[in-house]
């Protein structure tokens, strides 16, 4: 049973005395950790972009995990240098930290915790193509607090991890090396559906971007104004998805014209007047 004197001593020794703290060692740990994180953040994406395509996602995904491990290692290393770690002191520190976090840094810490959860649950990984809210893009970086999305229009969008608590995350490839692309075609009703379907399938099968290991499908749906065709196929490199869809669309339009079908045109309010 701890005496009052013990408790008092423990409280006094919560932090080591100033002259006992090896600041040079802390400085080295911080600098070393920063350098290691910088090296990982610089080297891995560089290798991912220039190395074999099949290793790209693994290398990108390793960055946040390596950074988290390095930071945990640094904290575990530094804390005993500064604090006198006992059960009582731990409870004191945890209590104080909880109060401070609860009042001042709630949202920030929520994002930090969500970041750790995201590393485990993996709703997104570096290299994935995700849609969060109205933003669609490639996850270029998974930070401690937020992720960085690179949109097709070359905008960088920062999305805090805490978004995973409230918003829907749509992941187009979910860690896979490819994703489904869809080219849409809207045709007036009077045409040979079987012929158009076959031609559109050949359009996908003759695309230079096609992934041979995945299926090609043409589905259609009748609408009051005509027929909506969807040409679904996979590129071998998901970074080519927009070039792939453009290629399918351009050649699909030519194939539709060859088949004698007419594309539907939506009438704008001004054109109906």
């Amino acid at each position: 049973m701890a005496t009052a004197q013990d408790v008092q001593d423990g409280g006094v020794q919560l932090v080591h005395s100033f002259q006992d703290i090896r600041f040079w060692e802390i400085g080295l740990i911080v600098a070393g950790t920063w350098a290691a994180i910088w090296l990982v953040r610089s080297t891995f994406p560089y290798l991912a972009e220039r190395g074999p395509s099949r290793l790209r996602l693994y290398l990108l995904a390793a960055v946040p995990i390596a950074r988290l491990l390095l930071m945990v290692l640094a904290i575990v290393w530094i804390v005993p240098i500064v604090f006198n770690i006992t059960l009582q002191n731990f409870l004191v520190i945890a209590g104080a930290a909880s109060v401070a976090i609860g009042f001042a840094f709630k949202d920030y810490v929520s994002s930090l915790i969500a970041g750790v959860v995201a590393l485990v649950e993996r709703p997104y990984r570096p290299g994935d193509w995700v849609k969060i809210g109205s933003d669609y893009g490639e996850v270029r970086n998974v930070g401690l607090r937020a992720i960085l999305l690179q949109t097709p229009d070359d905008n960088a969008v920062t999305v805090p991890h805490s978004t995973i608590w409230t918003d829907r995350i749509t992941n187009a490839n979910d860690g896979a090396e490819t994703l489904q692309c869809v080219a849409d075609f809207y045709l007036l009703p009077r045409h040979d559906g079987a012929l158009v379907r076959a031609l559109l399938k050949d359009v996908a099968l003759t695309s230079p971007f096609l992934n041979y290991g995945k299926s090609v499908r043409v589905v259609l749906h009748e609408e009051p104004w005509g027929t909506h065709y969807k040409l679904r196929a996979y590129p071998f490199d998901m970074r080519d998805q927009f070039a792939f869809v453009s290629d399918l669309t351009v050649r699909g339009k030519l194939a539709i014209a060859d088949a004698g079908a007419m594309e539907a045109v939506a009438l704008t309010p001004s054109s109906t007047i």
Partner: protein
Amino acid sequence: MSKTEGPVFLIPLEDAKTPPVPRDEVARRYLGRLIALFHREKSEPFIADDKLHRATLKRLDEVVAPPACGPVLAEIGATVGRWLDRQPGGSHILTVVLPPCDENAVIETWASEAGHQVLAPPSRQSLVATEEPILPDMAGSGILVVPRLEDWFLRHRDGLRAVRALLAAIDGLDRPVVVGCNAWAWAYLAKATGADALLPDAVTIKPFDAVRLHGWFVQLSTSEATGAMRFRLPADGEDVLAVDEAGTPRNDYLRKLAGRSLGIPWVAWHLWRRSLRTGDDAGIAEDAKAAISDGEASEQTLWVAALDEYLLPGSDDGAALHALHALLIHGPLTREELLLVLPGVGEPNVLPVLLRAGFLERKGDRFGCRAAAYPAIRDGLEAAGFPAGRV
């Protein structure tokens, strides 16, 4: 000499494996690629060609004579003979899938030498015509040979009709048919037309490992014209064609060559020719010179230079990779035909660059991949994620 006895047959395509490469070569290769990731400049030539043409073409033709297909013709003949012996009962179609860059047209050469009927392909331009394809008359008896299935299509939205019609017609024939196809075209046609289901049980050449290469190269270099030849390494004078009692090459060079060439005879043949040097003492170690003086006076020596490591542009050079991929699938194409099968919208013309770099060769108005560059092209395309042929 080679330990191989009796006829060698083609093997099932799914059994084809690249010959193993010695560990030091694997380590050296990966280290080189890692260094290249950080150091290679875009303007740097893709192939280090500074040591080429040291041996004269006449000399090379004496000691490493064409054609580059080696014993493959005989192996095709043996395999077809065995297949015919099993008729009827088996499939009436034998599909031979070969590695690309087959400049000797081995299937067609074999068929012509054996006197079989060869089915000529339509012109490439006619493949994309909107009319339904008209197939040549395939009636008759005896073996019908379609030497290059890749000549029957273009990867164009209108370019698959002829090959589909051909496959359907072949399926309905009641005579034996031998269909040749390059491995990259085969991978594509399996996806685009289901060719692997119509023509199952494809076979390919047995990979040329060090022992097979040794037997072939010894045969090529042993003639009255060449006299007694020795192929020595400049570093220590070791004879790369020397074998132990078991007939296995003593030196690692042929194992490296077999691995580097992916077991493809025409690739190995080109790399072997590229590595031969004559005369010049520069760069030859004293040990090597001593080895010559220890040999017989009548011996002639050719020096065997180290195999170059070629590297393709990275994945950021998509236009070049797409062009190379298209040329592997189709075989040699004209510039206009190539444009039909590329995604090109405002793409730069990469053909001159690839020609200068040594990846392509031009014959008339057609551009094709060079056999010696095929391993590098394959590596580069696989690294960039392009779908590849089995061999």
